[in-house]
């Protein structure tokens, strides 16, 4: 048997490219279902964990999926904001209410404006530096910091809201005060600020020189003893520092300041149910349990998974049939070799064992490769989950 194994090994080595392609085919056939199963398991676990830690989501009356994914994963969606007064209303019953504003981005990473409750609720801490506290401060998620190659003390600039709109607010410079510890959640890929900083980034809040110092007609459109009305041509500050921090202000009603959504956490399920019913009854507001939406999504994913499994099975069967065909043709091509081995005096089953050994080695190599690819796929899947 040792001789047969050695002969099989030599035969495979004599055709390295063919052997490698065959092993790769087997490897991919093994890796695909393994990776998809593992990915789905992790996807399922990650989605559920995120949903469980975000029991109730409150936002505008839009698609359930848009609202949940905008809140849990900071995914951009065409959603009207809800007013800040909703947060005050929601917290009336002694619930934990966490406001979120996710309108702007920094180098395509979501800029998340929130308050300290978010970090406490999600158990997020700073690995370096601190959490954002002042206007213009930003703390960057672990993956985002790595991707943007920034650290504490660096500055980042928000993305222009609309490159074609000259009247749109200008990008502002943020000072990084902390890098967050990795959590394996979408928080790793986001940039966190205070709510006023998020509003500043989208132009709701702004700062400029003392209005009384403007003289020209192009800057001043009206003036009384008490007020000076400035035109849109006045240049606003793009950088926040100790000297100008106090000058930042907004002109809107504070109750109308925009929020993307609220995360509501009650002490008991009963509290949450009551809050859910009350908030969902408000006009133009949708309140829902994120877990239910995630379950609905996972049902769809499971259906896709079963279809994918069928495809993977067909793929395996096809690969198996191709391998059998290849070995059968190879056996015919190598009939002279088989005859020689038999004629010299090898046992009757030696040629069969030889081809079986070659097949076994290909399957073994393919299996090892497949498991390796699956492990790699799973490792990449964890990154993918954050991206998702």
């Amino acid at each position, binding site marked *: 048997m040792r001789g047969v194994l050695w*002969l099989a090994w030599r035969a495979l080595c004599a055709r390295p490219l063919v052997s490698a392609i065959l092993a790769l085919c087997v490897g991919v056939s093994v890796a695909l279902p393994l990776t998809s199963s593992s990915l789905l398991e992790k996807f399922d676990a990650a989605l559920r964990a995120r949903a469980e830690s975000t029991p109730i989501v409150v936002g505008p009356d839009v698609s359930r999926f848009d609202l949940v994914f905008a809140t849990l994963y900071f995914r951009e969606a065409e959603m009207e904001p809800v007013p800040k007064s909703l947060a005050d209303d929601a917290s009336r019953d002694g619930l934990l209410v966490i406001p979120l504003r996710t309108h702007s981005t920094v180098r395509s990473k979501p800029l998340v404006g929130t308050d300290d409750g978010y970090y406490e609720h999600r158990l997020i801490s700073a690995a370096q530096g601190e959490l954002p506290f002042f206007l213009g401060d930003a703390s960057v998620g672990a993956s985002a910091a790595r991707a943007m190659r920034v650290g504490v003390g660096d500055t980042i600039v928000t993305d222009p809201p609309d490159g074609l709109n000259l009247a749109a607010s200008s990008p502002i410079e943020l000072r990084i005060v902390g890098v967050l510890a990795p959590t394996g959640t979408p928080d790793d890929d986001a940039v966190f600020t205070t709510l006023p900083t998020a509003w500043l980034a989208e132009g709701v809040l702004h700062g400029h020189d003392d209005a009384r110092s403007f003289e020209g007609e192009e800057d001043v459109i009206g003036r009384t003893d008490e007020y000076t009305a400035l035109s849109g041509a006045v240049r606003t500050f793009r950088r926040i520092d100790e000297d100008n921090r106090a000058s930042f202000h907004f002109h809107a009603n504070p109750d109308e300041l925009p929020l993307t959504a609220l995360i509501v956490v009650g002490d008991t399920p009963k509290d949450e149910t009551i809050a859910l019913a009350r908030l969902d009854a408000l006009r133009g507001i949708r309140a829902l349990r994120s877990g239910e939406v995630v379950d609905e999504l996972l049902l769809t994913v499971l259906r896709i998974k079963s279809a994918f499994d069928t495809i993977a099975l067909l793929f395996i069967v096809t690969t198996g049939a191709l391998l059998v065909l290849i070995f059968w043709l190879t056996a015919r091509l190598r009939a002279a*070799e088989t005859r020689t081995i038999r004629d010299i*005096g*090898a*046992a009757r089953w030696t040629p069969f064992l030889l081809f079986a050994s070659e097949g076994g080695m290909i399957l073994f190599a393919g299996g090892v490769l497949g498991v390796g690819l699956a492990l790699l796929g799973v490792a990449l899947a964890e990154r993918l989950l954050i991206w998702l």
Partner: protein
Amino acid sequence: MSSSPALEITGARVRLGGSEGFELASPDVVLDQASAMACVGPSGSGKTTLVRLASGLLRHDSGTVRTLGVDLAQMGDQQIRSWRVRHIGLVFQDFALLAHLSGLENILLPFIIGPGMRAEREQRQRAHELASSVEVSHTLTRRPHRMSHGERQRIAICRSLVTRPGLLLCDEPTASLDAHRADLVLAAIDRERTERGASILITTHDHAVAQRIGSVIDLSPVAAS
């Protein structure tokens, strides 16, 4: 066994091609131990069949075939294979080298595939000596596709000799060799006879080669009739 002929074929007939085939009668042959015999004849005259009968590759339907004192009809298939790899040296007409093995590995093939056999240091040493004797030492690391026709043939002859067989059956061993190489091969084969007492049956269509071997069986139709 020492007193019996190395090969004794008496009235052997073999049916080829199944029920609708034909029956072939083998010539009667007696080859003494440590002697050599040439079998000459044109293509299709039954030279290869004779070699296959003598080695047990072809089972006879009637008559007697005794090789190295063993009645082949009494042996089972597996038994005969195991016996053949140890006691019979075979040189095939098409050399039958394994394309993915080097020259040395091809020579040592009987030890690789033979049940219970292994290529130890001694066998490797013998393979090198045989290769040297027929001037193919330089091809031992090459695969057959990088050898000339003659080199492949001589590697095949080394393979047939490496197990120190009691009977060497060579089917056209010098067919594609020039005179010098043919001399080398015949000398190496004859050395097995003179030094170890091996018996040799060579088929050839070349009468000059046959004359050099010693006794001759002529299978050409005129001679046979």
